[in-house]
């Protein structure tokens, strides 16, 4: 049952908690279209007209928000897994 040592499980648990918190907050911020993340957006090459550009921006915001939440969920799973391994490792 135990496939992680104590150090690995502890590291993964901490990383997962950090990931959940940070990616969750980033997801929310992308969802409300915070301009701080302007340079992180994905704008396809052909969107030169302003209307198309703004449209691409908004789509990108939503998509990245979704991606962040997917990653949050994945880290949630990792947290459960590594937390279980940690519990196995540290129970006396």
């Amino acid at each position: 049952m135990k496939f992680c040592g104590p150090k690995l499980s502890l590291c993964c648990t901490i990383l997962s908690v950090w990931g959940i918190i940070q990616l969750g907050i980033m997801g929310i911020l992308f969802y409300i279209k915070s301009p701080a993340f302007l340079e992180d957006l994905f704008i396809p090459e052909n969107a030169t007209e302003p209307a198309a550009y703004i449209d691409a921006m908004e789509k990108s915001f939503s998509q990245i928000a979704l991606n962040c939440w997917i990653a949050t969920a994945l880290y949630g799973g990792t947290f459960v897994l590594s937390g279980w391994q940690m519990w196995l490792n540290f129970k006396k």
Partner: protein
Amino acid sequence: MGSLFRSEEVALCQLFLQSESAYTCVSELGELGLVQFRDLNPDVNAFQRKFVNEVRRCDEMERKLRYLEREIRRDAIPMQDTGDNPEAPMPREMIDLEANFEKLENELKEVNSNAEALKRNYLELTELRHILKKTQVFFDERDGCAGNLDGGSVSLTQNLLPDEAKGPIQLGFVAGVILRERVASFERMLWRACRGNVFLRQAQIEEPLEDPATGEQVYKSVFIIFFQGEQLKLRVKKICEGFRATMYPCPEAPADRREMAMGVKTRLDDLNTVLSQTQDHRHRVLVSAARNLRSWMLKVWKIKAIYHSLNMFNIDTIQNGLIAECWIPVPDLETVQLALRRGTEKSGSLPAILNRLSCVESPPTFHRTNKFTRAFQGLIDSYGVASYREMNPAVYTIITFPFLFAIMFGDLGHGIIMTLFGAWMVWKEKPLSVKKVDSEIWNIFFGGRYIILLMGTFSMYTGIIYNDVFSKSLNLFGSSWHVPFNESTIRDNREIMLDPKQPDQYEGTPYPIGLDPLWQLAANKINFLNSYKMKISIIFGIVHMMFGIILSLWNHRFFNRRLNVLCEFIPQVLFMSCLFVYLTLLVFIKWVNYGAGEDVPLVLTPGCAPSILITFINMVLMKGYEEAKGPNSCSAYMYDGQFYLQRMMVVVAVICVPWMLVAKPYFLYRASKQRAMLGTGGVEGAMEETPSTMPVQPAEDHDMSEILIHQGIHTIEFVLGSVSHTASYLRLWALSLAHAQLSEVLWGMVLRIGLSTAGTTGGFAMYFIFAAWATLTVVILVLMEGLSAFLHTLRLHWVEFQSKFYEGQGYAFVPFSFDSILEANESTVTEAK
């Protein structure tokens, strides 16, 4: 008197101890940990001291205990550390302890040797059992072979020559066991030595056997060698001995072999029982020893420490006592008296006498620290221990160190990581400090947990001021900048600069706390930040250095060095103020007066703001007065009369240099001349001082050249240093720029890849890329940059700040304390493991 402000007053005391009570008194003082003994017998060889026998006995006991510990550890019996601190036992108890240890050691040795003998026996019997099993096959072959040759069959192996012996050929044999690795060379050797006239059969023993000496498992093989004749027998036997193969007498007849096998089996069973009983006994002995081992060890260490201290005392044969000289902090004299009284009561003899002496040499420096301040004091002491009763920079370091670190590290995200790490270590202080970890890096981090906590909190603050969270800015209050342009303007212009003079672009009131979040997206962010960070670095640097100079005034006043105040402190302050404090003043004036806005007159617009650097250079070069060019042009000056004021300041600063160089030597020369004239030689004047450092001013004339040289060096160091140290504080800017850029690059090159991946695969990409980004953040930005900023902050404190007032020529007060001795012993034990 405040204890961290400057080091405590330490008195040299003489202690008269009666012989009977000496041991208990020293024991009490060791528990107290406030007294530093001086070695009164420094020339005596370690082997000629009075208590060398007792020390030797302690060493013996320690050796026995270590042997016990090794055996306990080998059996993996847990040694519990109850955490109690047993007192040093009385000398008569020492004999009991010795006897106890001797008994335990002998018992253990006996058990061990018995076990070894039994194991050897066991091994032999096991090997014999294997031999008896395996050789069955060999004998069958031999009999068959012999039988074959007997009848006159027409097989090719028929002997052509008639046999001399009637019946089967008489083959002698030798059976034994050899290590599997040696079988091949063994066979080859036999073949060569006996010219192929012997016949070897071997079979491997599947299970490994335990070697009794080393305890490890080895694989062996059974062999049997058939030969004919005495010569070959001797040769075979010799080869077997050479290859360290054990030979066993194996009976020929199968019936005998079966009988032997059964006998061996019963003996093996018996041996097994005896062996397990021996092991049980050993285990019981070790378990009972393990319970007390730790407290015994502590007791032995304490006894040894007491006798080492007693060896430092002088013997007073007249009154049958011991005389000790020790350094005791003056506020603790009462406590020490009480401890001595306790010690004498315990041994029931005459009380000890504590006498305060006056001394010429400088006492050790004692800072009373607690767990929080100890780390900061350690940082300062690493460079140099403060001279006796000198101003202690460690107090101020508690705040300036994390603050200067935070200027270089300012990032809210990284600050949070550091704070969490520090807070965890502080919260789990007690359990973590009990655990003895070998890793030196962990011990360094744990020792500096309060420093890390403070550095992290301050970094969070500067992160808010720089508005930087993992290279992104927070917009909590709404930016003061707005973009009023229409689509066509934006589309047609590659770059647009927002003008702060237009109210529709800049609100007029700045962002309440920290940097406006819009700067994060501006292309000229670094230009703006550079100017800001460089200026505040200089300002903080000059404030820090002026603070250092002012601290030197306290030192001069405490040691009654009036001459220094007049000839060093005042010119130093004047020099720094006229040049560098004036520089910061210029910075503030520029910040306050010049700005963009609708009603700002031309001369106060940003376009007309004079460069501070050029102004300063022109000031020092005493460049000529520039006429005002008219009401509608820029002025080189920030306020009226600036040129004349600056001229005056430069003159004052230049006067300060010869003042620093010559005034003090001149006064000393005059004073020494006066003394020589009055006929009273010597050092009375200087000696009227309170218990303090050695008189610094030498009283003889021939030191005049030395004074001049010393003063010259001091002056040059200060004057040149003022410029170079001021510039040195620019590292605050440099490192903060580097940190911000690294953070930005990490986000842009790593995390952005995951963010801008199109489609839902981005989610999974983010999962992995975030892990990589987080690891790199911790390793590069928190650890590496943190270490770098820590180092630079330390340098700023050690060199730029402390060179203004700190002497650092003292030696630390190292009290005789059982705690520190036990800790030192523990660490040597863990290192040796």
